[in-house]
């Protein structure tokens, strides 16, 4: 039992070996924090009245989350039923006439909350990977060359603080103009979200990588010179390992930004995802809407937290300096 608890606690950054007393303390303190929050939330919610009714408290949110799950399951059942009907129909057709041309149509029900979570996750990861693929090599090159760094630093500093919402109209127009294909591999909305996310989350990784690379100790550089390592070997064997901690700091900042940016972009651009879910519920304006939005808020927070933990686990895996406590 306690070993399961420990496994759950590990990603929270708690030490591995805990006595029972420590375990209780490690569990009780955060739990009591959550309880206090729920209590304040509950009291506050009862005293906020909106045109859509009372502000959702913890119990409404719980109710709505069950509802959202149930809706998702109903939608899945519908989909399964649809495919069964289609298969039966096609089988009959073939039985009558083996040469008949049969059509298989995809199910076109509306995406559920769970579907939207999936879409958002795929988009954020794709955007983050695209940004990292550009930012890490670019950061290494810029960090290794003082002239390049001085040349590009003003540009980086200029674009770093730009909000995603400012990029979005431009990206949308450019994608509609440039991404033209009869059989697109990805939806336009996906490409727009991906590029917006990439543009915003590029900068922390780029800057941190450049700084990490440029602060390699002179001694290690001398070792590399004495060994006459080629540029590539130098980068692979010396530069990247020694910049890994800074690169990961950048990546974690980037992923956090990517997730925040994505929700805003989806809301504004009506691209599928959690942001659209929130906006749709807001426009819907039923008495349940606020509760459902609140579920989305909590889920967005939880996913952001999980994404950061995943990065932390990765960072611990690749970090060579085990004496540094990563958090």
């Amino acid at each position, binding site marked *: 039992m306690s070993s399961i608890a420990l496994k759950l606690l590990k990603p929270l950054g708690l030490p591995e070996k805990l006595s029972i007393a420590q375990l209780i303390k490690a569990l009780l303190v955060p739990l009591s924090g959550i309880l206090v929050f729920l209590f304040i939330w509950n009291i506050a919610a009862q005293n906020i009245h909106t045109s859509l009714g009372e502000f959702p408290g913890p119990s409404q949110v719980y109710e709505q989350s069950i509802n959202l799950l149930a809706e998702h399951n109903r939608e899945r059942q519908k989909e399964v039923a649809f495919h069964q009907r289609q298969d039966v129909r096609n089988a009959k057709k073939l039985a009558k006439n083996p040469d008949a041309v049969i059509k298989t149509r995809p199910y076109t029900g509306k995406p559920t909350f769970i579907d939207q979570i999936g879409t958002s996750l795929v988009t954020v990861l794709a955007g983050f990977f695209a940004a990292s693929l550009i930012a890490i090599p670019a950061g290494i090159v810029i960090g290794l060359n003082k002239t390049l760094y001085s040349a590009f630093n003003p540009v980086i500093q200029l674009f770093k603080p730009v909000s995603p919402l400012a990029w979005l109209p431009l990206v949308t127009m450019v994608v509609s103009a440039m991404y033209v294909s009869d059989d697109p591999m990805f939806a336009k909305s996906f490409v727009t979200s991906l590029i917006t996310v990439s543009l915003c989350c590029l900068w922390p990784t780029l800057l941190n990588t450049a700084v990490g690379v440029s602060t390699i100790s002179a*001694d290690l550089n001398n070792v590399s010179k*004495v*060994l*006459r390592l080629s540029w590539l070997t130098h980068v692979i064997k010396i530069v990247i390992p020694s910049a890994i901690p800074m690169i990961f700091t950048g990546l974690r900042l980037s992923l956090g930004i990517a997730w925040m940016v994505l929700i805003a972009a989806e809301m504004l651009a009506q691209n599928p995802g959690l942001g659209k879910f929130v906006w749709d519920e807001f426009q819907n304006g039923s008495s349940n809407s606020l509760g459902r939005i609140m579920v989305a808020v909590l889920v967005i927070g939880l996913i952001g937290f999980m994404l950061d933990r995943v990065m932390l686990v990765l960072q611990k895996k690749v970090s060579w300096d085990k*004496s540094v406590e990563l958090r």
Partner: protein
Amino acid sequence: MTAKKHLELTGVDIDFPTPNGPFKALSNVNLKIDRGEFVSLIGHSGCGKSTVLNIVAGLYQATQGGVLLDGREVNEPGPERAVVFQNHSLLPWLTAYENVELAVKQVFKHTKSKAEMKEWIEYNLHLVHMDHAMHKRPDEISGGMKQRVGIARALAMEPTVMLMDEPFGALDALTRAHLQDSLMEIQADLNNTVIMITHDVDEAVLLSDRIVMMTNGPAASVGEILEVNLERPRHRLELADDPQYNHYRAAVLSFLYEKQRTPGEPTAKPISQQTPAASVAADAADTEATTTAVKTAKKPISADEQAA
């Protein structure tokens, strides 16, 4: 002796650019070193010992004059002039074995097979007595062990000249004595040409064939060169009472503390009136080198020597 020397520094000057114009760190450094010779560079802090070493390594370029190694000019770093750095400079993300491997792969990639390389890496780690911890990373081993690996890495490059920049400076006295002994053993085996920078008068006399004493900077140069004609193998305990050994040590001490007083001190006049120990003690706060000298002046056989 042949006419052509193995390693030759001729008229080496170096200027470092500063906002207030060039700073002349070395002026007219001349030095000739034979194959298999062990030469120490000794001098006060900031006198340019490391600069000389870095020029030989090819990490700095002389402004005037130059370095010839076996008749070829040195103008860039290379593994035939392996460097043992003061603070070991091992890659912290690689194990001892992998650190040596990086060097071996680079130097012998076309001449040794995989199995030969493995054997060669292990042989060099064995030379420095690191067999037992060869798969540990630098943060898992002690300072002395790290320096051993640093030496193994340099040896594994099969250098023509091994350059050691205060290799034992950061170590405690006991560990330093052990490493000095190891180095003498290896030197007896391989008979490398070695240039070593040191602050430690005892270390210089114990290890070297010649001690090159440098004048104070700026525009430092070679002051005196002392030949150390002590028979090898040398044992620190026996040497402690050896008049010849003490004579060499006194010669180095007198160069450092009478002829080359650290800058910013009163004139050398009072020294001749004081007892040597007292004058040295007066300098104690000034440099690391002085601290070492005080130790040696007061008790010829220090704790590390007894232990060794």
